[in-house]
């Protein structure tokens, strides 16, 4: 898997385009925007490390939407934080390879990494009202983002920044942007606050937007609007999106490709909708089977027995073995490798 990761996204894009998705021919040839191989994030002591992320590979093509799904504690958000160099000591990050836009993040000096984080890789979070500073106006916070991450003209001139702030608010479909510049976060609704967050995130013209549960706190009609906005920005700005969520249906509707994580490892990855239609890993299948919409006519929902392994009781074999209905002695004894090609891969001794 990791040996061919560099060419991974191109194969995948070619596969995706036959599914009727709009991908320009030039993109198929393009090198991946982001290429991470064997990423580990550990917390705790060296003697008893807590493995939050346990060797994941992640590659994202330009303008691609990748869904990263998994239950709480599966390592989705920590992966994103590692990418932005936001894992604080005593957390430890290591990887075999971590390249973004041709730049090696592992060897880049601290100030270069800091310049990339926030500008070239931007991030939005679940609760927009907690992410915006309550003491400053929307206009000030947009101006700040432009001062730090804008282009040369924007960094030099207040009036250029002001015009661009208005343009950004119009871009995220906020009505009456002039009035909104003077508003404080508490005067915004949840949906509007998330739009403002998106505006500050795209201020630096990022090539990759990490969206960590961006619509979980929103009402369904507003969720639909925000997802539609993200998809529009992705094609207009040619911006890749890493969509982190636990909502499989959201991913099914928006992502080109899905990565299913469990307890810090990738269990399965593949393009949408194949991964949802024919899951090959028992975990993916069990997650889908637990959804009410896949239990129509049943009195009881199908569940996954047991709970996610804790920090210190990680199984030696397959991480899912204690909860898997198909587990054998081999599964308990030996951890399977992520096998398959770059379009579709599964970590299971006995894939479905």
């Amino acid at each position, binding site marked *: 898997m990791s040996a061919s990761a560099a060419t991974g996204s191109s194969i995948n894009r070619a596969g995706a385009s036959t599914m009727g998705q709009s991908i320009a021919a030039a993109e198929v040839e393009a090198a991946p925007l982001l290429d991470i191989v064997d990423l580990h994030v550990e917390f705790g002591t060296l003697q008893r490390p807590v493995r939050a992320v346990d060797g994941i590979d992640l590659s994202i093509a330009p303008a691609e939407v990748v869904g990263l799904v998994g239950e709480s504690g599966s390592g989705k958000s920590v992966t994103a934080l590692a990418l932005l160099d936001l894992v604080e000591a005593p957390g430890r990050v290591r990887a075999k390879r971590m390249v973004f836009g041709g730049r090696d993040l592992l060897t880049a000096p601290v100030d270069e990494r800091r310049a990339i984080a926030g500008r070239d890789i931007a991030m939005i979070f679940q609760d927009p009202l907690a992410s915006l500073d309550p003491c400053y106006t929307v206009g000030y916070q947009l101006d700040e983002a432009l001062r730090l991450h804008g282009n040369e003209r924007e960094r030099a001139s207040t009036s250029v920044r002001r015009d661009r702030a208005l343009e950004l608010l119009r871009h995220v479909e906020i009505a009456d942007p002039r009035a909104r510049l003077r508003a404080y976060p508490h005067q915004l609704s949840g949906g509007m606050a998330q739009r403002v967050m998106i505006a500050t995130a795209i201020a630096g013209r990022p090539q990759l937007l990490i969206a960590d549960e961006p619509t979980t706190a929103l009402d369904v009609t507003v969720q639909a609007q925000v997802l539609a906005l993200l998809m529009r920005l992705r094609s207009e700005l040619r911006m890749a999106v890493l969509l982190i969520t636990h909502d499989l249906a959201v991913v099914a509707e928006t992502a080109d490709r899905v990565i299913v994580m469990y307890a810090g490892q990738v269990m399965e990855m593949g393009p949408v909708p194949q991964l949802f239609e024919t899951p090959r890993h028992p975990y993916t299948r069990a997650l889908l089977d*637990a959804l009410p919409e896949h239990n*129509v006519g049943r009195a009881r*929902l199908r*569940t996954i027995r047991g709970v996610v392994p804790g920090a210190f009781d990680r199984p030696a074999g397959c991480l899912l073995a204690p909860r898997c209905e198909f587990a054998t002695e081999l599964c308990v004894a030996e951890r399977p490798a992520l096998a398959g090609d770059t379009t579709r891969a599964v970590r299971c001794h006995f894939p479905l």
Partner: protein
Amino acid sequence: MSESSRLLEARDLVRHYRLSKGFMRGTTVVRALDGVSFTLEHGRTLAVVGESGCGKSTLARQVTMIETPTAGELLLDGQDVAHADRALRARLRPQVQMVFQNPYASLNPRRTVGALLEEPLEIHRRGTRRERRDRALAMMDKVGLRREHYGRYPHMFSGGQRQRIAVARALMLDPRLVVADEPTSALDVSIQAQVLNLLLDLQQEFGIAYLFIAHNLQVVRHIADAVLVMYLGKAVEQGQKEAIFARPLHPYTQALFASTPKLGRSRRAAGATAPSEPPSPLDTISGCAFRTRCPRAIDRCVVDVPAPRRIGALTVACHRADE
């Protein structure tokens, strides 16, 4: 439906709040619940669906008798809760219990599971210490907790197990109605399935009715017998689950359905959703409250408040529902 099968009946239930507009600016009235009628039968589940500010939680506060409705009737087993005196309300309260959304916030972190479960019995002075303990242990068994969990604290449990504790606590007083306010929306998919199964098992065993507040329509479809869709304090559509899911008639219900993400569908194929966001309950909108976001609004919707009327198997408050 006969009178005797009704556990809960709301007739034109109203709850208004007075709110200060600011220093020396007088007050304004928030119509959080503005004339809602519905019935819930014994041992059945009524799901209440709607977005923030629609009055779901206000409704829960009236039904659980935490607040007194401004007007209208709320009948629990034929007894009017809205106009009951303190003594009657105190007698009725144990019959209605509540399960909250976030089990990380709804359980006192300083009390053990045993103490949490026995507290409702202590408050209502039921049983001896020993009987309360036996009852707590029996209930733990029912909801799938082990005996050794009795002396443990909430922080030692996962989210799903905490929600089991919350459900067990709600059932300690043998309620006939449990108000569940988004009980699974803070949980992971696999855990959500376990908790929903538990709720359905307990309903079968004890004949409890649920007033199930939710925004996940797939969950509603699984668990509910009937559905009540609310928008800005009003019931815009209600009816049996099968009818409402087969063909919703109100444009708002249709927008909710279209907005709900589905597996096996691309976003582009999702169809029309409602534009903008739900207005603040502070805004007064003439005519139909949904008209500001409704794709089918006509002049009449600005002037006339649509009255709920029966169309087929559903009750709908929309001028154009039968077109």
